[in-house]
């Protein structure tokens, strides 16, 4: 449940940003495609922070 939410929420935010940028700059598929890739990466990063080893500090 937690992992899924982390993964999806990053993607939701990224798609919102990408679509907003496209809507603003009239470049519809461009930023959406970029941000979907980045959002997927951010989701994996979120999950890694959740289940990965604790950061040294």
């Amino acid at each position, binding site marked *: *449940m*937690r992992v899924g*939410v*982390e993964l*999806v*929420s*990053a993607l*939701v*935010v*990224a798609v919102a*940003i990408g679509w907003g940028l496209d809507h603003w700059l009239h470049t519809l598929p461009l930023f959406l495609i970029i*941000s979907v890739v*980045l*959002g997927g*990466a*951010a*989701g994996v*990063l*979120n999950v890694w*922070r959740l289940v990965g080893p604790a*950061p040294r*500090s």
Partner: protein
Amino acid sequence: MPQTGLDQGTGNVAAAATHTGAPTIDALGQFVLAPVPFIGSAVNFTQSNLLMVIGSAMVLWLLYAGSKPRAVVPGRLQAAAELSYDFIYRMAVDQIGPEGKRYFPFIFTLFFFVLMGNLLGLVPFSFTYTSHIAVTAALAVLVIVIVTVVALIEHGWHFFSYFFPAGAPKFLAPLIIPIEVISYLSRPVSLSIRLFANMVAGHVMFAVFATFVVMMGSAGVLGIAAAIGPLLVNVVLMGFELLVAALQAYVFAILTCIYLHDAVHLH
């Protein structure tokens, strides 16, 4: 001919009436907002707001009544108040560090507001205000704004180095920074969706199994015997939901602590 047509019509209406009269699964009707009678409709004061007021009043009462006796050996009420204070205080200090004392009132308020929402929602005929994404999203946005403001006050412009981990190769910056920014912005989304989804899922399950009881119970003697199954499921579910209510409030509070830790220490 018209006579039979009329008969058929009334027959259809009767059939439709019995059809709608039979219980159908209406799992989402419990989340509909309704203004409180007498005072509610003019200012849109709904049962959700009423439960928020009741929950906050109960926490205030617990702290007031719990701190009044000032006994050396605490009674039950005082012990409850001291335990709740101690629990959040230790959570704040453990997670954030010695600076956590400053944010203790915020975390305490947040935890008990969410906890009261989750627990009061389990009272029959009550309403779960944390089952609305508007409420949880407002709380999550409040958290993220406060965390960002704290980080900006503590570190100034240096805060933006948070989005680029030290030691990473410079040419990866255009890739890493957007990913870190998206990851940061996804925090309020995941924070609000987690709480809201847990509450909605639990209460939908209650409604579905409760409707099963009614549906099977209306299907004769055998049905009544079989209806004990979903009834038992609901009893077990109530215990499980008590766990989820406390756990989700705890998760909300501890994630706020972790975000505040990041804001105070940057990593």
